[in-house]
């Protein structure tokens, strides 16, 4: 379905991503973990074509994504929604308008300039907001919402795109543990109910373990681990983070329960629903 073939990105002398190759054969939820600066964000940005790869190719269902130009590229971006750490909403516009921005690829510049969206799209936007539990904030300005709510608006914008893929770049890094839980659960629900592939950059191990079907570990631009959460032992995690024996998973945890305990618990699949 989706495959990366030796994707490399260099910024001058620095290499952010070094010959990244992996294949996704069915819709799943993938977590990419690694230290800050390991190349996780660059990898997602290359997939969304916000950044161009220096060499290598990405193929999605036979289409070479890295070679797309102009409207074909924008069309791909509409199918491959992106969620950002800092939400990247338009702060002074209302929540529904921000969600409607998900349809911009299908709208002409003139109608979007006058904010003319079809009633059906407006109804659908509010339905999506309701699915994420924030319908009552629909007419408010995006900037008036809390971080967790803004991130859910960003997810609603992504869903409005009706995308094949959802990319989430550190979606919970600026949220408190409660909101982080809600946002990750929403992403998991979207994967399970709609069958969309979700790829999320995470910097906490337990989140990756709890919500993802597959974990990819990156270190200094290279993919150093690719497997199931069960295969991600503490030893492997130490290698990914380049840490010594004093490293404990609780150190990177954002879960409330782990604050007092030493070992996070992996919930049963039923619980993750």
């Amino acid at each position, binding site marked *: 379905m989706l495959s990366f073939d030796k994707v490399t990105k260099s910024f001058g002398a620095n290499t952010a991503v070094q010959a990244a190759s992996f294949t996704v054969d069915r819709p799943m939820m993938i977590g990419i973990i690694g230290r800050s600066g390991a190349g996780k964000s660059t990898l997602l940005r290359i997939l969304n074509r916000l950044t161009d790869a220096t060499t290598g190719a990405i193929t999605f269902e036979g289409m070479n994504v890295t070679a797309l130009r102009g409207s074909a590229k924008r069309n791909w971006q509409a199918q491959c929604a992106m969620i950002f750490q800092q939400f990247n909403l338009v702060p002074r516009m209302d929540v529904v308008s921000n969600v409607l921005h998900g349809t911009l690829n299908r709208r002409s510049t003139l109608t979007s300039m006058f*904010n003319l969206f079809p009633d059906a799209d407006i109804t659908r936007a509010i339905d999506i907001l309701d699915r994420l539990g924030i319908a009552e904030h629909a007419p408010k300005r995006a900037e008036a919402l809390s971080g967790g709510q803004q991130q859910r608006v960003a997810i609603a914008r992504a869903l409005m795109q009706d995308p094949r893929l959802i990319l989430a770049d550190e979606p919970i890094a600026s949220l408190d543990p409660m909101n982080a839980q809600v946002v990750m659960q929403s992403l998991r629900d979207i994967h399970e109910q709609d069958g969309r592939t979700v790829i999320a950059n995470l910097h906490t191990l337990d989140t990756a373990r709890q919500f993802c079907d597959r974990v990819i570990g990156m270190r200094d631009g290279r993919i150093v681990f690719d497997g199931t959460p069960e295969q991600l032992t503490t030893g492997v995690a130490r290698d990914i983070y380049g840490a010594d024996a004093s490293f404990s998973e609780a150190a990177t945890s954002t879960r409330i329960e782990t604050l007092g305990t030493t070992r996070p618990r992996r919930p049963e699949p039923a619980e993750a629903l």
Partner: protein
Amino acid sequence: MTDIAGSATRVADIQAAYLAQARSKRVMNLILIVIFAALLIAGFRTADRRNAGGFWDGLPNILDFPADVIGEAIERAHLLPGYLIKYLPSLIETINIAGASTLLGAMAGLVMSLLVTRGLGPVPWLVGPLRRVLDILRAVPEIVIALVLIFMLGGGPVPAMIAIALHTTGALGKLFSEVNENASLRPVEGLASVGATWTQRMLLGVVPQVAPNYLSYALLRFEINIRASAILGFVGAGGIGYDLRNTMSWGAGKFDEAAAIFLLLFLSIVAVDQMSSILRHRLTHGAKPGEIHR
């Protein structure tokens, strides 16, 4: 079940309310666009009727003067370098007037801007009156101030400099204070917490945040002032404007010298523009490492 039904009607309510709001917004926008277009067309027709010569008849002649100037300049292009050197001293005088007035105006404007920014000004009740002072400085055309000062002080660059500096104070005071409004108050609060005076808080807390914007507004003003001081030359304030008036009044056949003066003005505006982007870049991104010692 009742809960689900309740939430469904709630969402339907939200959708209905938002759709109603969106529709009324669209109607309002449409009305505003229609009014705008009507005013634009009506205004244009009125202006065209009152125009002495008739707008449409005069339109084809609009390029005659530039065509004459350029035509003669090309015809006598070999004389151009001589003219450029001949008028360089007047250009320097004009740029000097603009530079001095921008510097004085920007300094006064900086102080005024901090005094008239709500939330920053040390004397809240002075904010309104001082803003009106800035309004007056902007309202009086600089050519009027220059004429009055030339009458009192005699012709020369000093009256022009004062006139432009006063206008610059008014303009930059307003622009700077708008920049100040967007500055974060957190550094100011941080400095207040260590016991800094108002002047210290402003100089060390606000100015570093807004300096790049100040600089770009000041340099834009410098460009405008070069042109303004050239215009004031027409009324006897010296500089390149005086020469431009003379060459233009000599009429056809002498436009090549006017072209040389236009060229000099254009080149100096380009130079200021380039300088502006280089300085701004250095201020926002810092000097390249190693560049300082070279």
